[in-house]
């Protein structure tokens, strides 16, 4: 009884800490990035297959963040040009693309990147900017995470690396696409794109 009670009491005491981590966007972000880096740089990472690592990254991202936020922002007004079926497909394909990009970035380094997080700036009650600098292979890059507090918790809504916004970059690509083609062509292109991901030279330009 005593042990059970003590366990329960410990959980009760620790609960706010966990929820606070969830409530603080910087802590949530750092925890996710640390966990993602561990997939590649923890001592037994070399024994894991690429697929296992990719799966871990996929779970980590989808459990921590709602990628539809970034996808919908990248789509902008083009979202309404898709049928409901295409919207669902787009959602799944974009998620695969983000997971692939994250996996490629993290798996390409030899040494574990060093990340320094600067002070979080509250732009309003529900929007923050978290500046950071990433040092990898002797070069340092500035990365700013923009997060918003939605009903589902703090969510990343843009990542700005060296002054280049992830969302604006995809918005440009999608705007250019919809000027000439439709949603079906976009879905087809994304599927082909993800299929040929192993060989960059095969990517259709």
């Amino acid at each position, binding site marked *: *009884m*005593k042990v059970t*009670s003590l366990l*329960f*009491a410990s959980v*009760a*005491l620790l*609960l*706010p800490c966990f*929820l*606070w981590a969830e*409530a603080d966007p910087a802590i949530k972000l750092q925890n996710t990035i640390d966990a993602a880096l561990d997939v590649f740089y923890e001592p037994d990472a070399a024994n894991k297959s690429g697929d296992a690592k990719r799966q871990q990254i996929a779970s980590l991202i989808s459990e921590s963040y709602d990628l539809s*936020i970034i996808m*919908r*922002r990248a*789509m*902008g*007004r083009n*979202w309404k040009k898709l049928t409901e079926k295409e919207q669902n497909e787009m959602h799944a394909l974009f998620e695969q*693309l983000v997971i*692939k*990009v994250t996996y*490629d*970035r993290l798996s390409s380094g030899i040494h574990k990147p060093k990340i320094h997080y600067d002070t979080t700036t509250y732009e309003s*009650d*529900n*929007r923050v900017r978290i500046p950071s600098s990433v040092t990898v292979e002797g070069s340092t890059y500035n990365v700013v995470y923009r997060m*918003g*507090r*939605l*009903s589902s918790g703090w969510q990343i*809504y843009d990542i700005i690396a*060296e*002054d*280049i*916004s992830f*969302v*604006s*970059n*995809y*918005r*440009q*690509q*999608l*705007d*250019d*696409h919809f000027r000439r083609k439709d949603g079906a062509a*976009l879905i087809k*292109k*994304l599927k082909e*794109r993800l299929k040929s*991901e192993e060989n*960059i*030279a095969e*990517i259709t*330009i």
Partner: protein
Amino acid sequence: MRRTSLKLRFSLWLICTFALCLLPSQYVNGQDEGYLSEEALFEEDLDAPTQVSDPLEGLNRVIFRFNDYAYQYVARPVSSVYQLAPSSARQGVSHFFDNLRFPVRLTSNLLQARISGAWLETRRFAVNSTVGLFGMLDPASGMEGLEKIDNEDVGQALGSYGIGEGPYLVLPFMGPSNVRDLIGLLGDRSISPWVEPFSILDSEARMIYGMGEGVSRLPVYLELYDQMKGSAIDPYSSLKSAFMQYRRSAVKK
């Protein structure tokens, strides 16, 4: 025994109450005020930073494909051979050519009336050209007050005067640019004593300089290019957006 159990239960209740008091308010009363609306976030206007004038898109895409082919079948093999050299040697070469670009950085700082930037570049050049063995090392970066600053060029100076960027261009071999940066590039070349039209070097030395500078930059450029291409839905549009965002930000700084 029963008394102990009651005590324990009371303590537990106290702990839980205390713990709940510490919870952030939104988890306790489930209030949904203060949340960002998803619709507001989705519909947010991003047009200003993404709008790029690209009336020559058809021609640009043809040159982009040509460049992609050239990078794949000419630049990449050259870069692979260059990368056989030890990384310290490659870093030395990279520093050497970077140091030789001092006249462009100095003039561009002066054109923008950035006197402190011009003075800093001058001191860095003096230190790196002497202590740094003709610029092959970069001891200045390790000295307080002489840390590397962002590169300046004539294109940025023109931008700081309020001159518009003009239509987006893709230059053969060189990649993304715009009318303003193309003019800036001609300005950079006019300032540099190592390249035409006002070079102090003979034609052989100019060729060696040009090839050396180009090859020393290849590994970094190709890595960035691969990263961009690997994550893009449309690599042409992705590079266009990345370049324009980067240059607009450089002009603003």
